[in-house]
Every structure is written in structure tokens, then in C-alpha cells.
């Protein structure tokens, strides 16, 4: 397998401009002759579909949601970064670039990240022009906040609904193109297979979720903007229906899966309350500005929090990281919470929680100030737990939040499977081993509005301009048969256990062995357990209902089937990455004080996995990461 990142030559600052200049263009009169399939209508998919439609290509945009506006991007809260330097606090393209590389623990590709920082400024202009109601100052200019420990204020936001507003902006641009007839919207259509002809991605097979109809679609290029795969853990902050199927099906057809083990676990989420739990809700990180995190010093201390005297409390982040204290980065805070709970000092009914206590802040600043700062968050907390954080400390616990890994792409966002492009959270490229807060929205829109529309013509212009292949081609027929066979198999299986029960069990294996802290033994165990569970799944899963109508059990069955394969690959990736970096922490690789130990000698590379067939071991390939502009440094938050 060849992994050529196709990074343009020349100085870092000039690469993108040079690349655009040197790239081939598609003659405007010919654009209509190119069909592009866009799978996904989140920030990445909607922005790209709208832009390509506007440029004149013939676009079909697929989403399994009933409307593009419901993509998971809608749920992002905090904000979007951009190097505008509107606050005059010393931000710049270079600083955003450097922060992203460092935050990613030196495991991302320099040229991609630099380009991301460069186009970030255009995103804000574009969104403001679309009518995105960003927060503003009294003078009418855009407001910013500092986010995720950044030392400059570069985060733009729209109340606590930034993702919603940005997605609705992209959705309105997409809707306009649908109205104009340049983009055909295919909602309720789930892509279940990629079609590859002569080594190029040339189409997809979809199932209509409402009617069960299975259809072939052909095109000159296929683009995936299908989101992240955090739901492999079952419980996460993702929307329930987010899944890996599109990316996984492409992987099985030859696209390399890069760094699958890089998972971000967010420290401040509402803990699990019972085994019926379906979803974990994120509480904004900003709470850590005023809340103090603690657990009892004694194990199994069942006293209510106010009865535990000050000297019997362990403010463990303040103790371990005196200079950053409660503001220690996401991965460190998450891991410390897990350690405390593993030590038997967790709180709440399940023992999987730590206190986030505002009583000192309320004493110091008054309840009104706290209400002003966090009122809406306290309301959400109350709505879910029925507890008032003004009176008792909040209980929080880390939860799976984002996946940095994804399909491998080159500088053009094309995977190693020619003609298959991947954007947004579904690709691996920009965040290395850890993503900074407010940078996923930035990347999704950068890819969709400002990168793909410039790079896809390079590929299209090289093709001969005959129409897209006929859907009668043998490869289409075969792919459709595969989809039908799989669907039929699930429906006729008539086993005894529900799809959900398997998802829960897989999630537990992943959380226990491939979660916040990973060990060789644990991962090896998981690599044994997951194939067993997969076998049991295909032998004993029960999928009620029929295929020719809406059947949510069937939808989930396909998705869980793919998670059962992905989970194993994640564990293999975590096992072979013998170092700790960003969201990937191997207990064997830490400094005596418990800090993550990177190994830049051996692991300053991307691991991209090649699929070799069912029951075959996948093959690990590497792309070396060459840093021309930055030097490796160790993160320290003491």
C-alpha cells in the first residue's frame, strides 16, 4: 500500500497557495458533466455539497437523517476557533497552527494543520455573511472567548449552540442549491457500500430507511463527511445514531484507517445513572474555571458531601498539578478521575463520579455571579439529575467525546483509494493524538468550504470525461448483492439476543480495555474477546421486523456489526503504539510521576491500517511525520 501524503514543496506558509496555483482546473462548461456523491450533511458534508453545487458540479447529497439539519454537528456547544486576532491579544495563523500541533502531541501533519489555520479566518467571514448569529459586543463587533486552556481569545460562539448555528448556516446554503437544482438531496438514505471499479471509487449502494429500497448510485468521485466513531463505546456524548458504517465499508474496500486508537475522552460529563442509560451529556468545560474537583480521601466513603470535612477531601488535580489545578487539560483530568474511582473513592450511587464543587466559588463570588456565569449549565444539570448544583456539588465523570482517528487522506483529502475523499471528523488528518476545544467545527467547515472544492478538481481533471460508470456494471451488481445478503442474514437470523445487548457488551470491553488508560494485557484480552463477541453476534442476534419498511433494529444491527470489527482494530492500533500520546495513554509508558511518555524516535508517524479480509490480520503501514517548522517539546502542566 502506498501512502503518499502529497505535501507540496516550498515554505510552509506558501504551500497551499502554490498548490492551488499549480493544480488543474475543470473548465466551467464541463463541471456539469461531473457527478459527485457527497455522503453526509454535517458541517463538512453540507458545506462541501453547497459549494460544489454552486461551482456547477452535479452533486447528490446523502444523509441517513430525515433532514440535513439533524446531523450530529448540530449538538456542538462551545465554539469555533479562528485566527482572526480581533482581540489584538497576539493571535496569528502561526500561533493557531502551533497550538494545534502541540495540543495534538506532535502527531499531526504540519502542512495540513497550517492550511487549516490559514483558512480559519475565511470561515468566520463566510458564516457571518450567511446570517449566523454569532455573539457580539455592544459596539456590534464579534465577541470571542478563550476556550480549552488557550492563551488567546480566538473562539467565536453563538450562545451555547455554536454547532447548531454553523450547521444551520451550511444547511441554508445547501438548501439554496437544492432549490436551484444543482444538488439533489437524498435524505433517509444510508450508504451501506462503496463501489470500486478499476481501482477507483465510483459509486455507492444505499438503503432508504423509510422504504427499505436498496439503490445503486454512480459518480466520478465519492466524498465522505460521515462523522466520528465514538459510539463504538456505546455510551458517549455523540448522538445515538452516529456510526462508523460509511467509513468502515470504505475501509473494507481498500481505504486505509489511520490512528483508530486516538479517542478523546471529555472530563466533564454527567455520570451514568443506571444500566438503562442511553446517552452521556457533556457539561461545558468552562465549569472548571470556578468549580473544584475532589473525592473523599477514604475509600467507600458513603457520607453525603457536606458531611465530609475539608481535611478528609482530596482535591486531586490541585494536589498533582499545582500550577494548572482544576484547569489541567482534558486527557489529564479524565485520567485522574478514573484513577480516583478505580481506587474506590468515586462518588454517587455507582461510584463512577467525582465532585465538581462550587461552594467555595459561591462563598467568594456570591450565588448571583455563579448563576450569571453558569446558570444555563446548572439548569441542564438539574433537568437531568434533579439536583441543584447550588446546594450540592455536581457529580461528573469522563465520557467518550471525539475520535481523532479516521480514514487516511493525503493533502488533497483523498484517501489511498483514488476517487474517495474524506472530510471532517471522518478523516484523521489535523488533530494528531488530541483535539483542541473548538477545533472540530473549524476543521469540518475548512474542509467543506475551502479545501475540498479546490482539491477535487485536481482529480476530476485527470479523468476522461465520459459519464460516470453505468450502474449495470458488474461491480455495482456485486456490491448491491452484498448489501442485500447482509440485510437478509440479519433479518433471518432469528437469534435470541437484541442488537442493543451486544452494543452494550462491546462498549464495556472497549471502555475497560481501550478507554482512558490502556495496557498490553488489557488490549490483548480485548483482541480475544471482541472476535468472540462478533461470532456470537452473527450466530445469535435477533432483528425483529421486515426489511421493506422503517426498521430501526435493522439499521442498528448493521451499524453494530461494523463497530464489532472496528473495535478490534482500535485495540490492535493501541497495542502496537508503544508510547503514550494525547488521548492514547499506555500505562507502561509513563514517567514516574504518572505523566504520558511519548516516543518520538519510534512513533512520530501515522499508523494506517490495511484491511485484508474477514478473519485476516490487518496490516499496519506508516507515514512518517516530518516537522520542518516546529520542534518536538514535552507538554507539561505542573
Amino acid at each position, binding site marked *: 500500500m502506498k501512502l503518499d501524503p502529497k505535501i507540496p514543496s516550498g515554505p510552509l506558509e506558501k504551500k497551499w497557495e502554490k498548490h492551488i496555483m499549480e493544480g488543474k482546473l475543470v473548465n466551467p462548461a464541463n463541471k456539469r458533466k461531473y457527478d459527485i456523491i457527497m455522503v453526509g450533511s454535517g458541517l463538512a458534508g453540507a458545506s462541501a455539497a*453547497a*459549494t460544489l453545487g*454552486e461551482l456547477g458540479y452535479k452533486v447528490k447529497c446523502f444523509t441517513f*437523517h*430525515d*433532514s*440535513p*439539519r*439533524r446531523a*450530529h454537528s*448540530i*449538538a456542538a456547544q462551545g465554539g469555533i476557533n479562528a485566527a482572526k486576532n*480581533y482581540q489584538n491579544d497576539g493571535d496569528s495563523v502561526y500561533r493557531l497552527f502551533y497550538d494545534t500541533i502541540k495540543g495534538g502531541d506532535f502527531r499531526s501533519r504540519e502542512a495540513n494543520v497550517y492550511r487549516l489555520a490559514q483558512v480559519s479566518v*475565511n470561515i468566520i467571514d*463566510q*458564516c*457571518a*455573511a*450567511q*446570517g449566523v*448569529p*454569532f455573539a*457580539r459586543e*455592544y*459596539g*456590534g*463587533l*464579534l465577541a470571542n472567548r478563550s476556550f480549552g486552556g488557550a492563551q488567546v481569545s480566538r473562539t467565536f460562539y*453563538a*450562545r451555547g*449552540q455554536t454547532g*447548531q*448555528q454553523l450547521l*444551520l448556516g451550511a*444547511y*441554508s*446554503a445547501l*438548501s*439554496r442549491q*437544492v*432549490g436551484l437544482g444543482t444538488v439533489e*438531496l437524498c*435524505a433517509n438514505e444510508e450508504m451501506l457500500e462503496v463501489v470500486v471499479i478499476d481501482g477507483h471509487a465510483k459509486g455507492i449502494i444505499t438503503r432508504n430507511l*423509510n422504504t427499505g429500497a436498496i439503490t445503486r448510485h454512480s459518480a466520478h468521485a465519492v466524498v465522505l463527511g460521515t462523522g466520528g466513531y465514538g459510539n463504538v463505546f456505546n455510551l458517549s456524548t455523540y*448522538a*445515538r445514531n452516529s456510526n462508523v458504517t460509511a467509513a468502515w465499508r470504505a475501509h473494507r474496500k481498500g481505504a486505509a484507517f489511520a490512528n483508530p486508537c486516538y479517542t478523546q475522552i471529555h472530563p466533564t460529563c454527567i455520570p451514568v*445513572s*443506571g444500566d*438503562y*442509560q*442511553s446517552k452521556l*451529556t457533556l457539561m461545558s468545560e468552562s465549569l472548571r474555571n470556578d468549580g473544584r474537583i475532589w473525592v473523599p480521601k477514604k475509600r467507600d466513603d458513603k457520607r453525603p458531601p457536606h458531611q465530609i470535612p475539608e481535611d478528609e477531601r482530596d482535591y486531586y488535580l490541585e494536589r498533582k498539578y499545582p500550577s494548572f489545578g482544576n484547569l489541567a487539560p482534558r486527557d489529564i483530568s479524565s485520567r485522574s478521575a478514573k484513577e480516583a474511582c478505580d481506587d474506590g473513592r468515586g462518588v454517587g450511587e455507582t461510584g463512577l463520579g467525582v465532585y465538581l464543587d462550587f461552594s467555595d466559588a459561591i462563598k467568594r463570588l456570591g450565588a448571583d455571579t455563579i448563576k450569571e456565569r453558569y446558570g444555563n449549565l446548572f439548569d441542564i444539570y438539574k*433537568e437531568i439529575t*434533579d439536583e441543584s448544583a447550588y446546594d450540592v456539588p455536581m457529580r461528573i465523570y469522563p465520557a467518550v467525546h471525539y475520535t481523532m482517528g479516521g480514514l487516511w487522506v493525503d493533502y488533497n483529502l483523498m484517501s489511498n483509494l483514488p476517487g474517495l475523499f474524506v472530510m471532517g471528523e471522518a478523516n484523521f488528518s489535523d488533530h494528531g493524538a488530541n483535539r483542541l476545544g473548538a477545533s472540530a467545527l473549524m476543521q469540518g467547515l475548512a474542509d467543506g468550504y*475551502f479545501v475540498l472544492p479546490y482539491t477535487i478538481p485536481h482529480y476530476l481533471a485527470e479523468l476522461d470525461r465520459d459519464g460516470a460508470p453505468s450502474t449495470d456494471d458488474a461491480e455495482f451488481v456485486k456490491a448491491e448483492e452484498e448489501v442485500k445478503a447482509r440485510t437478509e442474514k440479519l433479518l433471518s437470523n432469528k437469534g435470541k439476543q437484541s442488537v442493543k445487548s451486544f452494543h452494550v457488551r462491546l462498549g464495556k470491553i472497549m471502555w475497560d480495555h481501550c478507554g482512558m488508560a490502556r495496557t498490553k494485557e488489557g488490549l490483548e484480552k480485548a483482541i480475544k474477546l471482541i472476535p468472540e463477541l462478533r461470532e456470537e453476534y452473527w450466530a445469535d442476534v435477533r432483528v*425483529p*421486523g421486515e426489511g421493506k*419498511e422503517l426498521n*430501526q*433494529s435493522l439499521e442498528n444491527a448493521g451499524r453494530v456489526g461494523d463497530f464489532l470489527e472496528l473495535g478490534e482494530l482500535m485495540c490492535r492500533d493501541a497495542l502496537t503504539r508503544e508510547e503514550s500520546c494525547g488521548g492514547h495513554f499506555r500505562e507502561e509508558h509513563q514517567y514516574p510521576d504518572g505523566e504520558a511518555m511519548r516516543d518520538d524516535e519510534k512513533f512520530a508517524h501515522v499508523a494506517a491500517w490495511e484491511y485484508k479480509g474477514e478473519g485476516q490480520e490487518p496490516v499496519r503501514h506508516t507515514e512518517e511525520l516530518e516537522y520542518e517548522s516546529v520542534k518536538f517539546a514535552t507538554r507539561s502542566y505542573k
Partner: protein
Amino acid sequence: MNVKLRVWRQKNNETEGRFENYEAKDLNPNMSFLEMMDVVNEDLTDSGDEPIAFAHDCREGICGTCSCMIDGKPHGPEHGVATCQTYMRSFKDGDTITVEPFRAKAFPIVKDLVTDRASFDKIQQAGGFITIRTGAAPDANSIPIGKEIADLAMDAAACIGCGACVAACKNASAMLFVSAKAGQLNLLPQGKPEKDRRVLSMVAAMDEAGFGNCTNQYECSAACPKLISEEFISKLNRDFVGATVRSSFKAKPLV
């Protein structure tokens, strides 16, 4: 706690639907309404029956997918929340809870509690946008917008496109939804040039999709999970009258 459920079951849009009774036992009052439905569905699956189809995704009140009528109210008994933000502690032990789909001509039933709300997308495609080419935008700070206007636009933009306003309205009117989108864009300086065209096209698309007329009862606002204000409807009415008048005096091409 235990509750009894009367749930609307309907195989598809061509067949008749009916209520079926179920029991949900040993519930934790802190589980969400949809988690209770998950439990019922697991039981149905285990006993060889077909689970109840219901729409959901984010489960935190932002995607607008969930859409049940609970005891006759869109999104259930609590004010200002979506179905997925409704918790079992809002009900009493032993209650019988009636669960139905949103009902409106423009939202045909797909199955059980799931309806097709593509008509909202159609309205959006007709005019719910500002025409701006990608890459052609001026610097974001070149057009200052007063904080009050920006905040008001954000109030309108908070709509999650769920359709509860339609379900709550006896005429199945979509005026609150349309007025929220049009209101947001019409308030902002960027949206002014297309204001008239937007209002006329969106209202025409709404009529065409089969939504009813607004008779100013404002059940919509009361049922809206984002508490979108009915004042946006008044604003839309004013904008509509203005746009209609102006469109009849269209500038003639110069000869």
C-alpha cells in the same frame, strides 16, 4: 415506578393505525422518557414482537428529531423542553401515558411515532437563506450588528425544526417555524436585500406543502421546546404585507 402506556402503532402510511397497551415496570424516575421507551422496546424484542418506532438522535434537545405527542401535548408535560428532555419523574407511579405521533397533513406518518417532516426542508429551500457565494464574503467585522439585534436574531435562530408548533396548532399551521427562520434572516443587515423575496417564497412554499392558516391562537409558542416567541409571527405578517405591496409596484425595466 410503574406506568401503563397507550401507544399509537401504525405499520406505514397506507395502513390504519391503532392504540396498543403496554406496561413499563421498575422504572427509575431519573430515566428519560425515551430511555423508558428503550426499555419497553427491549422487552418487546425479547418477547419476539416488533419494537415501537420512534424518532430520536441527539437526546439533548437540539437536533429536533424526537417528536412525540405525550398525553396530547407535543413533547410532553414540561414547558420549554423536547421529548428527549422529558424525565419519568414528571409522571406519577401508576399513570397511564398516551403516546402518539405529531399529527398534521403536511407530516405524513412513516411508521408508529415517526413522521415525515420533509415539508420543512422544502420551505427552507424556497427562501430560508442568504445568497452568498462561498469565498465571496467581506471581513466578518466589516458589518457591525448591534448586540440587541444580534441577540434577537439568535432567539429566532434557536428553532430546532421539530414541528411541535404544527402539531400543537388546530390548523396545523407552520407560521411559528417560518417566522423564526425568516425573522432571523430579515433582522440582520446581511439578510435585508432579499427580505421581500424570502418572505413571499417561504410563505408560498408553506401553503403549497399543505400547512394550514394561522388564526392567532398561539398554541405553537406554548408547545415550542425553544419557546420561540409568537411576536415573530406578527413580524412575519408585517413583513409579508409590506412585501406584497412592494411586489405589486415592481420597478419596470427602463425603456
